[in-house]
């Protein structure tokens, strides 16, 4: 367990009808929504998520977990970036400024950054719709004087987003599967060629195959690294046990833990903490 006290990310959650400020398409099937409301005051930990009610009726019934991508505390606004996958996110993508969205959050344990020191180097590794939480994390790290390098991967040029925003924080390496933008291939292809300077800590969010590749590359070393997981969720607060994952053998032996709840123990875990 990276933070046995739980102090760092013990943020109280709430429920609020928040007001849509902007809602725009920024890449293929990718939308960025900015919402205003009092819950923003609680969104101090990067890597947390909100559980969003899409539409007001019983269809779709459940909330959708979406990561917090940026926070503007002064304006009491936060930004979430989501991919249109099904009926819920489709409804969300059609919302207009001034309309209300019911938000539960912020939820989960975010990325630990308390122990980061000025002058350190952090590398942020993101894949597709896993990139958004890394932006708020990057901003927080830069505020602390940490040097940030981003390595972000997408399917193709049409799907690339947050590249320019991340460039304002530090160096950015982009990969696409089809080579239509940046380096052809995967984020791990950039990490393994040695272009990125040695780092003190790695933070990641993305598809399971990418996270598995990171475990294979760095799981044996003592590199400090954190990953954020995604899973179908029910309650989002740790009660329903829908979104569990397995601890690694090492974690199981050290802690006796036999499962983690992604929504409340995570979504961020130490790289070696979970079995993917």
């Amino acid at each position, binding site marked *: 367990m990276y933070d046995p006290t739980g102090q760092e990310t013990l943020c*109280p*959650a709430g429920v609020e009808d928040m007001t849509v400020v902007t809602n725009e398409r920024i890449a293929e099937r990718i939308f960025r929504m900015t919402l205003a409301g009092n819950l923003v005051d609680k969104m101090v930990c990067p890597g947390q998520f909100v559980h969003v009610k899409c539409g007001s009726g019983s269809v779709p*019934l*459940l909330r959708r977990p979406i990561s917090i991508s940026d926070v503007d505390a002064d304006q009491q606004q936060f930004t979430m970036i989501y991919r249109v996958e099904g009926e819920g996110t489709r409804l969300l993508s059609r919302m207009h400024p001034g309309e209300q969205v019911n938000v539960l959050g912020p939820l989960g344990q975010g990325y630990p950054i308390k122990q980061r020191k000025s002058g350190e180097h952090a590398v942020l590794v993101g894949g597709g719709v896993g990139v958004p939480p890394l932006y708020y994390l990057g901003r927080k790290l830069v505020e602390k004087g940490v040097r940030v390098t981003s390595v972000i991967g997408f399917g193709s040029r049409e799907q690339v987003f947050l590249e320019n925003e991340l460039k304002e924080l530090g160096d950015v390496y982009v990969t696409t599967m089809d080579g239509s933008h940046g380096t052809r291939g995967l984020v791990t292809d950039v990490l393994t060629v040695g272009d990125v300077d040695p780092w003190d800590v790695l933070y990641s969010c993305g598809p399971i195959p990418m996270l598995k590749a990171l475990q294979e590359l760095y799981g044996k070393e003592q590199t400090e690294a954190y990953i954020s997981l995604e899973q179908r969720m*029910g309650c989002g607060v740790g009660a*329903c046990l*829908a*979104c*569990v994952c397995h601890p690694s053998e090492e974690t199981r032996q050290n802690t006796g833990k036999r499962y983690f709840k992604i929504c*409340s123990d995570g979504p961020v875990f130490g790289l070696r903490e979970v079995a993917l």
Partner: protein
Amino acid sequence: MGTATTSERLQVKLGDITLKNPVMPASGCFGFGREYARFYDLSRLGAIAVKATTVEERLGNPTPRVAETEAGMLNAIGLQNPGMDSVIQEELPWLQQFDLPVFVNIAGTTVEDYVEVADTISRQPGVTALELNISCPNVKCGGISFGTDPQIAADLTREVKKVSRVPVFVKLSPNVTDIVSIATEVEKAGADGLSMINTLVGMRLDIRTGRPILSNQSGGLSGPAIKPVAIRMIWEVSQSVNIPIIGMGGIQNAEDVAEFFMAGASAVAIGTANFVNPYVCPEVIDSLPALLDDLGVDKISELTGRGWRR
């Protein structure tokens, strides 16, 4: 309009058990209460039905464990729970800080399992009643296999009643041809009350892969989609038994509570709606008095069976 005070208006009785209001979270949808205690004081609830407890720890099914449906959801958690020793040491003492009747849902693979959990759990301080889970559709043995045959259900009820120090409510499965025959057999075997309904077995496929979305393939359907099924079953069963019924299945608001009462329920449990709105239980409780005014009813208990009583 009558003269009952607000607290008297919502008070209900389940046999010898008195609840300050008729709303409890349903088993499996509320853990052991800790997660929702972050949102409100659990003492506001009429009672709590905690997660199914088995003799040994159970790790449940692989993920994905939930799939959304039209106005509902499928789950196949698989009775994941920390086992009865941990529940006794960690969860039940923690719940005692609240003014809250506790219904402990118990499950097992064999009759001996059920008897062992019932015997042990019912001795614990703060346990108000047992809810006998003979209707979980998501485990290979135990659960629903006890709930689909009237005689097997009755035999299990009888064995559990022999050892239990507290009233036993039997949670019935809707996945049966004739729920009335099961309910009446369970009553004859000594059940103190019924909880109904558990989830309906269902399934969803991912059309991209052609495969089931749930790793367990099938799961239990809950949410507003199943409310009419629950209403019909409670309507039929409540006219055939003389023990109280805790009604559940898709309840989202005070109007739904009234409908369950009119069908024959004496209290209700709210499940899936907690996932949508963590405050749903206290919100429903708070909105009941105004609804009773609208309906011209003094006490909510007067609504039980109003649909069929002549």
